């Protein structure tokens, strides 16, 4: 893991020295705030209709909103990681330095993951407001955020891989967005397939939609955790192989 810290620090510095992170944070928190406001307004107008807790609604019901958020936040966070270094030629500086490919991949990935976590951090304020107005189950809060974290970790890993696959940041952005879209469209098949069929089981297993519903109900299904762990580790492993392969190309 030689070289991890300097790379990780530089990656974070770049995130916060450029407008990208701040624009993302502003847009993300604005949308989340509106979403939250709309939710509170609807609950206030018809409190008896909803059979869900406000928190469940915030994290679970509006899964489509999640996809929009994932698609808008994750590809820009990962697109430049490798594509920019290759486009600018600075990758030569990294490949000729005494560092391991694993340190290179993990430093970049973890910097993106930390930024992602920091983006979500202020939403705790909304949860705090909901807790002031009604009952909030701490376990549900914890599992909801776990779901957001695991899904983000996996999609960021996919984005990191996409960034290593192409030299153009824009292509990396599009590619990552398409993979996220694929997850979403794949999730729709849970509604199109019959319960009990293999197709349904597969669709359910892969559907971010189903996963988020479970997480936002306070359920930690070990299958979901395994799914996200492998969806994180496999792309990162492949990325490391690709980066190592540049030495032999």
């Amino acid at each position, binding site marked *: 893991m030689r070289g991890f810290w300097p790379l990780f620090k530089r990656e974070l510095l770049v995130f916060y020295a450029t407008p990208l992170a701040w624009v993302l944070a502003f847009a993300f928190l604005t949308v989340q705030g509106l979403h939250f406001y709309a939710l509170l307004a609807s609950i206030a107008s018809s409190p008896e209709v909803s059979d869900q807790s406000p928190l469940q609604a915030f994290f679970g019901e509006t899964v489509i909103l999640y996809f929009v958020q994932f698609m808008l936040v994750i590809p820009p966070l990962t697109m430049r990681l490798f594509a920019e270094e290759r486009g600018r030629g600075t990758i030569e500086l990294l*490949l000729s*330095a005494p560092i391991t490919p694993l340190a290179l991949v993990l430093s970049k990935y973890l910097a993106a993951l930390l930024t992602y976590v920091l983006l979500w951090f202020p939403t705790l304020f909304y949860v705090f407001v909901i807790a002031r107005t009604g009952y909030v189950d701490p376990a549900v809060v914890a599992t909801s955020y776990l779901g957001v974290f695991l899904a983000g970790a996996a999609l960021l890993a996919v984005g990191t891989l996409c960034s290593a696959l192409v030299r153009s940041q824009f292509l990396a952005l599009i590619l990552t967005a398409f993979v996220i879209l694929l997850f979403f469209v794949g999730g729709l098949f849970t509604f199109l397939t019959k319960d009990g069929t293999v197709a349904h089981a597969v669709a359910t297993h892969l559907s971010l939609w189903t996963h988020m519903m479970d997480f936002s109900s306070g359920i930690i299904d070990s299958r979901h955790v395994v799914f996200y762990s492998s969806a994180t580790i496999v792309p990162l492993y492949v990325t490391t192989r690709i980066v190592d392969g540049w030495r032999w190309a």
Partner: protein
Amino acid sequence: MLLTAEKLEKRYGAKVALAGIDVQVAAGEVLGFLGPNGAGKSTTMRILSGVIGADGGRVVIDGHDLADDPIAAKAALGYLPEAVPLYPELRVVEYLAFRAELKGVLRKYRVSYIEEAMQKARVTDVAYAPIGTLSKGYRQRVGLADALVAKPKLLLLDEPTAGLDPAQIVEVREVLRGLGPEHGVLLSTHILSEVEAVADRAIVIDHGKVVAAAAVTELRAADPAFLIGVSSTDVALALLKPFAGRVVATVAEGGAVRVALVAGSAEGRDGVAEEVVAAFVGGGVGVRSVVPERPRLEEVFLALTRSRAEQP
């Protein structure tokens, strides 16, 4: 040997970029790495720095095989890529601090190493300028400071003066001349005067092959010739007929004949000169002067690379 590279081969599809290149650099030596554009200099540099892999051959840096122990081998080298890629958003000191840490320079040495590298590369006056705002000459020297910052034993510099104006070239060459004793340097260039100015020894490559390897002074002495000022060039040329096969005679400017030894001949230049002058005097041609021609490296270089091109 600080650097030993043996039989480096590299293909890009059907194109052979390197066809078995051998390079050796001793500690403290500046080795010029000459070749026309497209000869394979940058490809060799990239292989030596571990940026790309070779299809064949072996690289050992400071006793560490680059393939088996890349970390140890890379820790001994500083590399200046031809395009001098840098991070434009960083300030010069920030960039060098990042690079020093990345190359494993211990915290307690970092500040002094960075200052020393900036001094050697003459970029101290722009220490706090964002790299993106610097001129090409400064960026080149920031790249040089980066290569120097961890005090590597081996420096791989790929065309460090390319694209600079004459004043900047002079500055960079001055920096390069100072590198000799502390570092072993492999300096690639397509400009011969650069090698004459800073290198001890040079190897010349063309079409991915080494075509000459010698001390700079020896390279210059290759293919010897001399100019003889005579009273009649016509008679002189006629008198040289018996030497056919040993020398090539041509008429030069100012009433002189240029007598060049046939390439590859083992004869000494001075011995031949004496014979030729004796023949002239014996044939009634007045000899005004005999001047050994010291061909510039440019001519040697052209001769070497041309002869290779003619025998495909």
